[in-house]
């Protein structure tokens, strides 16, 4: 039996090696897809990580507020600032409207004086009763407004970022000025020279971390490479369905199946041999695409695929095998159920494309609406992607693989049993 299964494996592999179009479909197409999709999705992924917004900055104040606001925005690292002080108001608005800059910030003339006046007024209202120098109630104070103008294309998340950044810096400036004023008043009251502590960090600390292993460098949870390499690897594995199913139908339609049916060995052996061959192909696809992620994508300016250590490589392999098994099982089922090669090609490719779309292959599931997220849980490609994400994103362990691997194995068993039944019906009339 082993000899016969090995014969079927060799035959399938040899058929594949002789089929240049098939090889291109199995290896060149997913390699191109990984590169193209990683390039296409690089910018959107950076939106959520380290992309910088282009800001044109018009400082009409030319005082502390204008200067310190600009310095604060530059320090945040989220903005690339261009000086637009020399622009006319019309040029300034046009530059934003035409998309040359995503954000325009205009600090009005006299903003520093307004800050100074309001701080002094507040301090006087507190210390006036002590020193007898307070301003009387009802004194009219000037106001100043920093204008933030947005390109309509800028997403809501970025608007929030700009708003929070500007407000945070302005609040900091107001607090600093108040502290400074209070120190002066206290010195006047006590007659001593006071040294006020410089507060650079909030008293209550903030720490951000990923819900998973620590990724190296300044990386955040996801980038284009880390999403696209596993996603298109899973897609490529499942796309073998088209070739596998087609070859099965081709064999059945020709006299070859009739000869095979009159030779020792049954349906199970033929299916097992075929699945083992394609399992090897799927693992080879996985190795190729991971190597592309690790070595080729960085060469074209994309983030490198990070695999954190040898244990994660082992885990990656363990994730690949049940995914490949599910893909090949689906392939033999499609091949067994189809009555023609066209039917097999249409059935296989349509199923895989739809399942990949809802399974989070094209765009991550987490940015889909809740209904689509729920639907995506039913896709075997989603389970495969989740299995790959355990070593690649979460740096998890074998136990964390189980929730994804278990449905893949169950799916495989169901497909294989159904394939054997359908194949027997199609061949032994």
């Amino acid at each position, binding site marked *: 039996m082993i*000899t*016969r299964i*090995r*014969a079927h494996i*060799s*035959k399938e592999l*040899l*058929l594949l090696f*002789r*089929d240049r179009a098939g090889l291109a479909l199995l290896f060149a197409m997913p390699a191109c897809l990984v590169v193209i999709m990683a390039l296409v999705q690089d910018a959107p992924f950076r939106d959520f990580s380290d992309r910088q917004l282009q800001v044109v900055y018009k400082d009409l104040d030319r005082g502390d507020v204008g200067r310190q606001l600009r310095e604060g925005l530059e320090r945040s690292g989220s903005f690339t600032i261009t000086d637009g002080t020399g622009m006319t108001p019309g040029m300034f608005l046009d530059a934003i409207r035409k998309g040359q800059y995503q954000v325009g910030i205009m600090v009005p003339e006299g903003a520093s004086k307004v800050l100074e006046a309001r701080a002094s007024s507040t301090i006087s209202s507190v210390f006036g009763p002590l020193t007898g120098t307070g301003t009387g109630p009802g004194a009219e104070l000037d106001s100043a407004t920093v204008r933030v103008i947005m390109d309509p294309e800028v997403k809501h998340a970025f608007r929030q970022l700009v708003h929070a950044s500007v407000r945070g810096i302005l609040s900091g400036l107001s607090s600093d000025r108040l502290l400074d004023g209070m120190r002066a008043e206290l010195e006047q009251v006590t007659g001593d020279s006071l040294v006020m502590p410089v507060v650079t960090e909030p008293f209550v600390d903030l720490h951000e971390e990923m819900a998973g292993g620590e990724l190296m460098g300044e990386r955040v949870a996801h980038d284009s490479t880390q999403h696209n390499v596993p996603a298109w690897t899973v897609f490529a594995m499942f796309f073998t369905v088209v070739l596998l199913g087609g070859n099965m139908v081709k064999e059945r339609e*020709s*006299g*070859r199946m*009739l*000869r*095979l*049916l*009159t*030779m*020792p*060995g*049954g349906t199970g052996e033929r299916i097992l041999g075929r699945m083992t061959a394609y399992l090897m192909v799927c693992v080879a696809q996985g190795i190729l695409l991971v190597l592309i992620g690790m070595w080729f994508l960085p060469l074209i300016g994309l983030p490198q695929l990070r695999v954190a250590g040898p244990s994660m490589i082992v885990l990656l392999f363990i994730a690949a095998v049940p995914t490949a098994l599910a893909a090949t099982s689906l392939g033999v089922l499609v091949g067994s159920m189809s009555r023609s090669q066209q039917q097999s090609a249409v059935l296989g490719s349509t199923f895989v494309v739809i399942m990949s779309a809802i399974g989070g292959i094209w765009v991550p599931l987490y940015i889909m609406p809740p209904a689509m997220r729920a639907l995506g849980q039913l896709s075997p490609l989603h389970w495969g992607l989740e299995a790959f994400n355990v070593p690649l994103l979460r740096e998890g362990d074998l136990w964390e693989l189980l929730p994804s691997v278990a449905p893949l194995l169950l799916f495989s068993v169901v497909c294989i049993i159904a394939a054997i039944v359908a194949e027997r019906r199609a*061949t*032994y*009339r």
Partner: protein
Amino acid sequence: MTVPDIRAEGLVQRYRHSGTNAVDGLDLEVRSGEFLGLLGPNGAGKTTLISMLTGVLRPTAGQAFIQGLDIVAETQRVHGLIGFVPQEIALYGEFTARENLAFFGRLQGLDRATVREHGNHLLERAGLLDRADEPVRRWSGGMQRRLNLVTALLHRPPIVFLDEPTAGIDVQSRAAIRELLMEVHAEGVTLVYTSHHLEEAERLCSRVVIVDHGKVVAEVTDPQALAAHERLEDLFLQVTGRELRDRS
């Protein structure tokens, strides 16, 4: 009493969709070393009968035995005893002749050395040895037909079924196949052969059975001995009629 190589008792194959019998209670015995010609018009039940005798099709009723082995209960053992040449070219066109033989030989449990030895011998007899390393799809139809036969003989089975092995090929290839079949028959192999070439059957077979409507309607024990005025074709038309048998 020696066990016949092939024995069929009341074999029935009923079409589920039409309810008609393709093979209708057929009895047949083929002794070891016989060259049996199975003749009949289109739709007579020849291919269905061969499909049942080779274990591809499960009989609706009746039993069949190959060297005493029940074809349903002991299909795997039966498959080790038979060779089969289907009507279609049952080869991998992308493979060379040697690669085709290697694959089918391994399924029959032959080791590499045996496949090479038997394969070269048969390829030479079929006039294919010098092109044995070319992909089969580049070959002519006649060459493919010859390899189709060689593949069935590779494991030296004692019984070979041939379903129209010379259909649609040139005279030279047909002659080469005939010669190879006669050599194999001379070596003691039992052959069961279907064809529409009545003269060919007359020349090759040691016995001819004419089948129609799933039953044996005539039998000629020594077709070569038929007198000139008793041509097999006349007998064939006499027992099967002149009505056209176009398949729907």
